């Protein structure tokens, strides 16, 4: 066996931060012999996770070859591996993997992992993995290949996220995991968790499932793991490990098939099967039941080699690494954070639902006094009451301690007088979407506050510049556009009006970070980014419906976009009147390319909440009386025509937005839609998708991204 055949792979990929395999001989107590302990370490601090690239795997494999020879000579009685603090290994080096541009090289990469990992199970002496921290993807599979595993109760980030990223756990994980924890739990780890916001396990949960045989606390995890290994080697653990494994892995053919079927249903519900990877994971799991490990390995390598070349994989890496991990954390165009001023008290104008949600968010995350105002005491009481009730709910669910609940409750007060804003550093308005009302509010607030106090607006459609126009200090005004529900949606559109100064903008970005929101800088254009794109999409779907396309076809035509919710269902959730209002303001701003549906206005007039209504048998239909309210044309479109038309509309609108400079780059559009509308990562954001399907070329004569 030799790792020389992989040198071409190492030579082709860009420079890799190598994670080394350092070996130390540890004499074990009780005559258990000498254990060779491999530490996977890239010699960098904990901000730079250890990863697996070709050079890393070749070094690891060669290290194991050497240890196998030492085992044969009788020099060592066991091999164990662990990682530098906080990491076993964080997984494959994605920037390396994404640069593998041929199926041949992809297959080599897949085979390299198998060849190295298989050695762990074939050293001639028992092998152990001490999972001291993050173990994701290939980082967990390396542990699964060992004969025994311990895990630290302080570890977090344990999982197989490949299905999320567009790959499969194809370094043996898909074969070995169900044999340790049973097929149903394997589906949970390989499918459900990755497709649920890429969730992962902590050490205690991983032990509970059977991913590890023993659980130790972090304070002396390495020491206790080594002593446990010694007991295993001398038979001191008896059959305890075997018995526990047998119980946790218990399954039969029916359970296996059932787990696969449940997984497929989950994937359909979550992704509309818009991406290939999750189904491939389940295919491998299904086939693996009757395959040997070697046979499964061959299938895994084929799947990996193919998937590495799919657009979905590259799109997800782009969306996950380049957008969410990088651009999302360092917003393009944000001024130097050193310019920011401290915010020690926040005012919220309005005490409605949005205003109350904002008050709760500011109090909870910034831990500064927040004062709400409204026009009468009843509204104020209702707003403050809402916040206090939400705090009580969090207390009940143990998401807040009693002390933290007391503190947060005390931070939120209300008043009918804006005088309470006098010592605030930041006042945000969330009053009725009417320019004159907002201008008046700002004028009243400005009369009370200091010259430096920032005035923010949560408007979703009005001009921030006009709102600021008549103020003494228009430079203090900034747009701060949240998404509903405020606590859950990560996006914040920070709107720079022409006169907004850098200090104000810097403070807004620092504040957004304090609120744990991902801020994107947008210019002061109607509806900013998310609502404008959603509005254009709604316009197309309601238009084809009004023209005569049936609801089923119109509402499901966008399935390939993998949206979290169909357009009509989303409209019903937002509320038809709100949707209609936004659509009308977009129509006013941009004209006929934003269709305003007369039929929808009729539904609103009749008090209909949404197109679809649930029937007694649980299915959804559009009731006849709803259809009877509307006047529709007789020119239906096919689903394909609707999809095509919407793609073109989106390409057109995004092209215009970039020309207008609403955001700095198409990446910001993608980021906004992923974080503000929950659009899927496997498309890699909307702009690469529109490039791939040819819409940008059709409409604009160019692509958003260079190939």
């Amino acid at each position, binding site marked *: 066996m030799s790792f020389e055949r992989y040198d071409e792979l190492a030579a082709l990929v860009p420079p890799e931060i190598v994670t080394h395999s350092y070996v130390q001989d540890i004499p074990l107590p009780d005559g258990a012999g000498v254990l060779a302990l491999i530490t996977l370490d890239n010699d960098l601090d904990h901000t730079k996770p250890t990863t697996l690239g070709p050079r890393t795997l070749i070094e690891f494999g060669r290290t194991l070859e050497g240890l196998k020879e030492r085992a044969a000579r009788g020099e060592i009685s066991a091999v164990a591996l662990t990682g530098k603090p906080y990491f076993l290994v964080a997984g494959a080096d994605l920037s390396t993997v994404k640069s593998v541009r041929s199926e041949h090289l992809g297959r080599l990469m897949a085979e390299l992992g198998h060849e190295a990992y298989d050695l762990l199970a074939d050293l001639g002496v028992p092998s152990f993995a001490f999972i001291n921290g993050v173990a994701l993807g290939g980082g967990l599979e390396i542990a699964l290949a060992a004969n025994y595993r311990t895990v630290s109760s302080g570890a977090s980030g344990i999982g197989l996220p490949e299905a999320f990223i567009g790959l499969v756990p194809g370094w043996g994980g898909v074969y070995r995991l169900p044999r340790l924890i049973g097929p149903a739990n394997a589906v949970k780890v390989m499918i459900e968790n990755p497709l649920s916001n890429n969730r992962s396990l902590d050490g205690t949960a991983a032990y509970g499932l059977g991913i590890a045989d023993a659980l130790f606390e972090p304070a002396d995890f390495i*020491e206790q793991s*080594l*002593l446990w290994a010694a007991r295993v080697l001398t038979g001191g653990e008896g059959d305890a490990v075997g018995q526990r494994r047998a119980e946790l892995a218990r399954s039969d053919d029916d359970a296996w098939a059932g787990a696969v079927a449940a997984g497929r249903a989950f994937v359909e519900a979550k992704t509309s099967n818009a991406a290939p990877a999750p189904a491939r994971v389940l295919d491998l799991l299904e086939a693996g039941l009757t395959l040997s490990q070697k046979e499964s390995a061959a299938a895994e390598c084929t799947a990996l080699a193919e998937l590495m070349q799919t657009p979905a994989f590259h799109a997800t890496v782009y969306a996950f690494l380049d957008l969410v991990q990088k651009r999302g954390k360092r917003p393009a165009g944000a001024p130097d954070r050193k310019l920011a001023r401290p915010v020690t008290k926040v005012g919220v104008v309005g005490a409605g639902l949005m205003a109350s949600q904002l008050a709760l968010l500011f109090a909870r995350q910034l831990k500064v006094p927040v004062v709400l105002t409204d026009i009468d005491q009843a509204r104020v009481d209702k707003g403050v009451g809402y916040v206090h009730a939400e705090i009580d709910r969090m207390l009940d669910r143990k998401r807040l301690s009693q002390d933290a609940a007391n503190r947060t409750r005390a931070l939120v007060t209300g008043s009918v007088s804006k005088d309470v804003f006098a010592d605030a550093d930041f006042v945000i308005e969330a009053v009725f979407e009417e320019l004159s009302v907002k201008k008046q509010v700002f004028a009243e607030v400005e009369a009370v506050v200091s010259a430096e106090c920032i005035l923010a607006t949560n408007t979703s459609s009005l001009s921030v510049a006009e709102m600021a126009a008549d103020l003494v200090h228009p430079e203090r005004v900034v747009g701060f556009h949240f998404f509903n529900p405020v606590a859950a949606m990560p996006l914040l559109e920070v709107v720079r009006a022409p006169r907004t100064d850098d200090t104000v903008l810097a403070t807004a970005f620092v504040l957004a970070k304090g609120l744990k929101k991902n801020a994107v800088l947008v210019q002061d254009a109607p509806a900013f980014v998310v609502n404008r794109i959603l509005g254009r999409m709604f316009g197309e779907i309601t238009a084809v419906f009004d023209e005569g396309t049936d609801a089923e076809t119109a509402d499901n035509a966008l399935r390939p976009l993998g949206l979290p919710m169909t357009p009509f269902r989303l409209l019903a959730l937002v509320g038809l009147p709100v949707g209609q209002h936004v659509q009308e303001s977009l129509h006013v701003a941009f004209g006929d390319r934003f269709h305003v549906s007369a039929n929808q206005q009729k539904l609103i007039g009749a008090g209909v909440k949404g197109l679809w209504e649930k029937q007694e048998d649980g299915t959804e239909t559009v009731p006849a009386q709803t259809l009877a309210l509307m006047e529709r044309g007789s020119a239906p479109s096919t689903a394909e025509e609707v999809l095509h038309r919407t793609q073109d509309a989106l390409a057109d609108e995004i092209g215009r937005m970039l020309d207008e400079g609403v955001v700095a780059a198409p990446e910001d559009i993608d980021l906004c839609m992923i974080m503000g509308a929950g659009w899927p990562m496997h498309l890699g954001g909307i702009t690469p998708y529109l490039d791939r399907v040819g819409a940008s070329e059709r409409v604009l004569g160019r692509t958003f991204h260079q190939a």
Partner: protein
Amino acid sequence: MSLQTGTPSTGRTSRAARAVRDVVFVDGVRTPFGKAGDKGIYAGMRADDLVVKCIRDLLRRNPSLPPERVDDVAIAATTQTGDQGLTIGRTAALLAGLPRTVPGFAIDRMCAGAMTAVTTTASGIAFGAYDVVIAGGVEHMGNHPMGAGADPNPRFQSERIVDPAALNMGNTAENLHDRFPAITKERADTYAVRSQQKLAAAYEAGSIQPDLVPVAGRKAGSGWTLNTVDEPPRPGTTVEDLASLRTPFRAHGRVTAGNAAGLNDGATAALLASADAAEELGLPVRMRLVAYAFAGVEPEVMGIGPVPATEKALRQAGLEIGDIGLFEINEAFAVQVLSFLDHFGIDDEDPRVNRYGGAIAVGHPLASSGVRLMNQLARQFEEDPEVRYGMTTMCIGLGMGATVIWENPHHEHYGQDAA
């Protein structure tokens, strides 16, 4: 949210006349000792982590002790800043995973830190304030070089309260050679070589290893390793080897790196209990505290401190020096041990003294050493039930001595006619 409270202590009322309660040494452990400095086994490690490993191992070794029954955690350190600061007894208790209801504090009496942690908490047990305590010490002399950050009062010098030279322990050892001309460099070196030999023999016999807590350490570029033995010992050292060493404290002096303890990193921890609590909780009794005493001497000859401390402790216990069957005396310097032996008329090679060798061989991480002496005395009690009384004693910077006298529970007359 409810605060967890420990089980109420047994049978005490505040108004009734008090009886002093017996205090027993249940168990003690330590980390292997390391050499201070960049190449030492604990370079880059934190002192508090070393203590935490000891506390956790103590609890693992005594599974019948519910952790919430620990009434206090006293940890000594000479330099109480950085990783040895922040009230290290409390931080170590929290980091070790003891319930938050268990309090802790920090203690300092320089080299006798851990010994003072033991005597202080033992007094609390005798008084009835505690049932069970953890007492120990730590010194990471690599992270905290001796005297770092000290700011001696200028009055020491201007009013001749302490000779500034006496703040350097090596100087005080040279002063002791001056006072006792009979203690030559050759005697000191011979004693030091014996210390190395006795430790090597104790390792060979497996007397040291049972009370060591393995400590994992990780160095840049080499990965995790496991430290299971002391780093300082130099078995095979000869008198000839030592003869050629420099005398850093005085030209043509007598004190060398070979006949003194080194600069070391390490931690210790012991479990003490009232005799009643030990019985109630099924904890082993390995020694019974008989008496303890501290005494002051001239700072310039601090090494003589164990002599008056021992006389005082013997007086309290109603014992004679001849009643003491085993001595664990800390070997800060060979001359200091020899001055003690000469005073009490004990031979340099008396088999009752430091059977496992001493700090000259194993090292002396200042505030941790007191409990090491106790661990070793407890082992020797087990090995030698003929011995009824033993002593742990040490000298202390700025001119002090500390002595603790213990009774062997394995002795046939244990508990009878208690001293």
